[in-house]
């Protein structure tokens, strides 16, 4: 049962092979048994999940169900859930029970889906390894002798799905936080176009880069999940008024006549020979499926990380100024005065990586440095975007590695934060440009899963899902689990 995809679970519920209460209870039991090993969940929503499953079974019995009614899944603990603890991986929000639902959360509730719990993440989504959570590190279920990171920041969602503690989960991606953990845990993860999924109630890190998306076992499920998440939301003024297509409609379309691009800049020192070989093998699969593959150029690719580490911290420093110890969240003991209340609540409530990024952002925005850093980074951001715009005049989608290497060990990046930042070298440009990006399982290196990244033009999620699904009909990498390799 734990090997069922969302699509198969929906089929089983529809033909009454099992009830939502049965599968929900089975998942809750498995979480209770295995979560202590992986630490994938911060909060397990046992009581409310069973209640939601009961209601779902009633809806199904009455014939009032949608495809998602009764399906258990998990939310990254960055989405506000009314009445359910939402920590964002931070001590700052250790006691935050939101009085409202994020739009993404409300969408799944309306469909009658069953939230199993809230998954672990790097604090405020700042990290690529899940080592920066106040609630402890998440263990990659693919670990063998050495314990490995699940990737980050959506590492809890990724580990939960890989360990079969949830059939699917939501994630968010500001610089690679859906795609990199998906690659490390052998999953399918999609970061949609900026503005495709509402950010309302999704705790903000860098507002012009953040985007929520699905993390699943395959492309078919990602299409089903994006269908619920996507759409304009009056509560998020940056969500786009663009029609939402049927994301499952084109999954089986032939790839005949499509042209895919391989960015020559990505074959650099950062990419090992083994990783490059995986990519070459994936290119062959797409060619056999009828697509043409040609070289493209993204000349400003190497400027993505420097631009990101100005823009993201700058936006973070502004966004995180709301945590002041006054209205909700952590407050220090016995503040001497108002300044002491602000400064100590924030210093005690935030972890080291969050403080680093707030300081970088504050510096980049401070008087005398704004033009040299922030304005310059925004200009470079446009150059990065223009590269993609030019490339998509020649090709329908771009193939790239998701990460420079498979999952690494805890502490492997040492003490220098810059080493960790370089982990996102292949994913970050999609966030800067705002285009959709997807990671799908594409092989093994040193016995560990690695991802293939698909980058598409604005609002071209359906095409990425089509490519991913066709790849998954021709390969079986996505079927491997840690217990079944």
């Amino acid at each position, binding site marked *: 049962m734990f090997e069922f995809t969302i699509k198969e679970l929906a089929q089983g519920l529809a033909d009454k092979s099992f009830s939502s209460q049965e599968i929900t209870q089975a998942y809750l039991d498995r979480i209770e048994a295995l979560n202590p090993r992986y630490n994938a969940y911060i909060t397990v929503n046992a009581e409310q999940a069973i209640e939601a499953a009961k209601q779902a079974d009633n809806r199904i019995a009455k014939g009032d169900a949608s495809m998602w009614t009764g399906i258990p899944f998990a939310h990254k603990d960055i989405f506000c859930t009314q009445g359910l603890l939402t920590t964002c991986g931070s001590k700052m929000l250790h006691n935050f029970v939101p009085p409202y639902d994020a739009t993404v959360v409300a969408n799944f509730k309306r469909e009658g889906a069953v939230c199993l719990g809230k998954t672990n993440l790097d604090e405020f989504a700042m990290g690529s390894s899940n080592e920066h959570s106040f609630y402890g590190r998440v263990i990659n279920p693919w670990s063998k002798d050495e314990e490995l990171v699940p990737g980050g920041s959506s590492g809890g969602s990724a580990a939960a799905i890989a360990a079969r503690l949830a059939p699917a989960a939501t994630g968010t991606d500001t610089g690679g936080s859906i795609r990199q953990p998906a690659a490390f845990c052998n999953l399918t993860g999609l970061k949609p176009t900026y503005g495709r999924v509402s950010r309302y109630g999704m705790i903000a890190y860098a507002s012009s880069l953040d985007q929520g998306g699905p993390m699943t076992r395959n492309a078919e499920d990602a299409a089903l999940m994006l269908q619920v998440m996507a759409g304009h939301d009056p509560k998020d003024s940056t969500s786009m008024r663009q029609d939402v297509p049927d994301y499952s409609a084109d999954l089986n379309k032939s790839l005949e006549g499509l042209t895919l691009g391989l960015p020559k800049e990505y074959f650099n020192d950062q990419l090992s020979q083994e990783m490059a070989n995986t990519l070459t093998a994936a290119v062959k699969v797409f060619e056999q499926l009828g697509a043409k593959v040609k070289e493209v150029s993204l000349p400003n690719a190497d400027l993505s990380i420097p631009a990101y580490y100005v823009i993201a911290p700058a936006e973070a420093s502004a966004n995180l100024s709301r945590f002041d110890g006054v209205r909700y969240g952590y407050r220090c003991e016995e503040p001497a005065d108002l300044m002491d209340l602000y400064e100590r609540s924030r210093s005690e409530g935030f972890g080291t990586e969050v403080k680093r990024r707030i300081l970088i952002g504050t510096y980049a925005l401070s008087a005398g440095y704004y033009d040299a850093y922030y304005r310059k980074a925004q200009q470079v*951001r446009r150059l990065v975007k223009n590269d993609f715009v030019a490339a998509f005049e020649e090709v329908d989608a771009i193939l790239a590695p998701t990460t420079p290497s498979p999952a690494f060990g805890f502490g492997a990046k040492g003490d220098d934060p810059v080493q960790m930042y370089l982990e996102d070298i292949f994913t970050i440009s999609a966030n800067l440009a705002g285009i959709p990006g997807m990671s799908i399982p594409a092989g093994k290196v040193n016995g560990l899963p690695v991802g293939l990244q698909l980058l598409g033009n604005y609002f071209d999620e359906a095409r990425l899902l089509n490519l991913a699904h066709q790849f998954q009909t021709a390969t079986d990498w996505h079927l491997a689990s840690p217990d079944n390799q």
Partner: protein
Amino acid sequence: MSIGPEDIKKIAHLARLQVSAEEAEKLGGDIANILNLVDQLQAANTEGVEPMANPLDAVQVLRSDTVTEQNQREAYQAIAPATEDGLYLVPKVIE
């Protein structure tokens, strides 16, 4: 780029953070490394390039000026650290 402990303390105060002398030392080193990374931007030719704030160059949309939200003060203040008579409590500001 060198960032001394005094610079760190100044930036920290702007960000309403407190850092100990020991933390300031370590953070200064980290931030200097990050600024070194960021300084690669200076090599880019961006003359005449319009800064980009939104990936789709979307502009802010305005809603009609009508009341849509309901008063939920009690729900919102139920999660506050300290309130009284519908007000948020902070240490004394005016002597």
